[in-house]
């Protein structure tokens, strides 16, 4: 079980700000593939991964990173602070 959170247009496309996901995915890429296979709204949100960033337990990470021990996965567009 992992908590998955979405921000900005990813949140809008997927339709929820956060959800608990039952998964055995080994990496972030595996999780994205699992979700994208599940419903079209995920496939739409993850269609262009170059425009998606990921954080694991609130630390910026990448799609190759392992999910073992991770409690919170966040997907969001490139950040625009300041």
């Amino acid at each position: 079980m992992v908590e998955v959170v979405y921000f900005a247009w990813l949140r809008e496309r997927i339709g929820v700000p956060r959800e608990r996901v039952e998964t055995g995915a080994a990496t972030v890429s595996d999780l994205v593939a699992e979700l994208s296979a599940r419903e079209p709204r995920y496939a739409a949100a993850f269609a262009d991964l170059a425009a998606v960033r990921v954080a694991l337990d609130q630390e910026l990470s990448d799609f190759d990173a392992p999910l073992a021990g991770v409690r919170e996965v966040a997907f969001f567009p490139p950040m625009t602070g300041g």
Partner: protein
Amino acid sequence: MRISVQEAPFDLGAEIAGFGAAGNAGAVVTFSGIVRDDTGRMVALELEHYPGMTEKALTRIAEEAMARWSLADCVVIHRYGRLAVGEPIMMVATAARHRKAAFEAAEFLMDYLKSRAPFWKREIGVDGPGDWVDAKDTDEAALNRW
């Protein structure tokens, strides 16, 4: 060092009153960002952030600036929520012995904030919510100088 992620406005003058005095600072630099309307059709920005990660990211960036430029003090305040055109979005302030360090540290903080702090902006136009603001390649490129 002070980090704040808040919905409320801030008072830049109050934030830097006596700022850096304990560290014998001779130079204080501030930057503030203001909601700008380039189209003439925007009424506000809606800023979303990632509670928890935002504070961590800002703290790490500020700690790096403190160490790298031996700052006497450092403040980072970033707002979220709906901010009307003309309203201040965020501020940083740096206090150092000399002006070069204070300027460089403030620019470093801004460059990192732009691309490494989890905020996202959406334009609210006269007709309602509009587009999410895209990240700029120039902002990502600005990190390379540090």
